[in-house]
């Protein structure tokens, strides 16, 4: 039986270890967008609160806008978990319309840094347990040659009063 040298084996194992992130079926791998932690949002009883979620998109990548131009594309969507705050509306930023070589029509996308703003109605009586809002950001990113799997990022916003 043929044997291989120790240094070669070490190189192979290091290669395997470095690839561990990649070898995760189709759900793992690179994240092309990151939710940027923001300052705490101050709540005033009976008023409205504006919650801004900033998203940094990796250079050379885009994510689909909230209203992509193609029915097959996955829109960027921010959703919030239940809380005593009542969501009144979510405003997505204006999308860029970009021509890509892989599409016969312009696509509606976000790139660089974007901010999504959600508006909430704050109740007169706020429970003491209301210290943060939890949400999820669904997005799907591509560059001009390849697409990454759809991702769901957790969003946590601290609340103060």
């Amino acid at each position: 039986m043929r044997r291989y040298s120790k240094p070669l084996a070490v190189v192979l194992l290091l290669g395997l270890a470095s690839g561990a992130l990649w070898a995760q079926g189709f759900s793992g791998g690179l994240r092309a967008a990151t939710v940027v932690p923001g300052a705490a949002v101050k709540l005033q009883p009976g008023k409205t609160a504006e919650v801004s979620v900033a998203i940094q998109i990796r250079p050379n990548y885009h994510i689909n806008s909230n209203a992509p131009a193609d029915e097959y594309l996955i829109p960027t969507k921010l959703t919030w978990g239940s809380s005593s705050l009542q969501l009144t509306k979510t405003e997505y930023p204006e999308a860029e319309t970009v021509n890509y070589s892989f599409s016969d029509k312009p696509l509606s996308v976000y790139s660089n840094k974007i901010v999504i703003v959600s508006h909430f109605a704050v109740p007169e009586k706020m429970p003491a347990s209301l210290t943060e809002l939890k949400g999820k950001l669904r997005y799907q990113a591509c560059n001009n040659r390849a697409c990454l799997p759809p991702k769901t990022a957790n969003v946590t916003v601290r609340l103060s009063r």
Partner: protein
Amino acid sequence: MFSSTKMPLLIALVALLGFSSCVEDATVGGSTVEAASENKELTPAPNFTLKDVEGREVTLADYKGKVVLLNFWATWCGPCKIEMPWFVEFQRKYKDQGFSVIAVSLDDEGWEVVRPFTEEYELNFPVVVGTNEMADEFGGVAALPTTFIIDKEGRIRNSHMGLAGRGEYEEEIEALL
């Protein structure tokens, strides 16, 4: 340390995992890995059995004796849509010479979205809906499209992550027919 039977698989895995550096880089896509030219270094393509749009089983091992272009794709993947008409043409052009495309969709929604796509793009080759486990068998699929060119003996000869050139595919197919 490693037996000779395991070593070629390890080498191939490391070669494929070389993609991981591309994944961490700002530009995924456009990567091509050509397997070693010596037969002893070639990796057997992992076998799978999945159902096509008509519910018929598609087993990769049944394609032994044919050159196979195995394409991982999804309906939401723009670059994949560029390649699909090429693959339709390849299937038409090379089918009688012992060639087949097999397209593996990685859409979470499965046939609900894949079926209309196959009809719209008039795909003339087997299309199946894949799983994460199956993608793992192929070393993980970090980005789409990812395409493997498999020779008549069922061994992976070339891998492409991201949109590749039509001519590049044709050269690789014709070299193996």
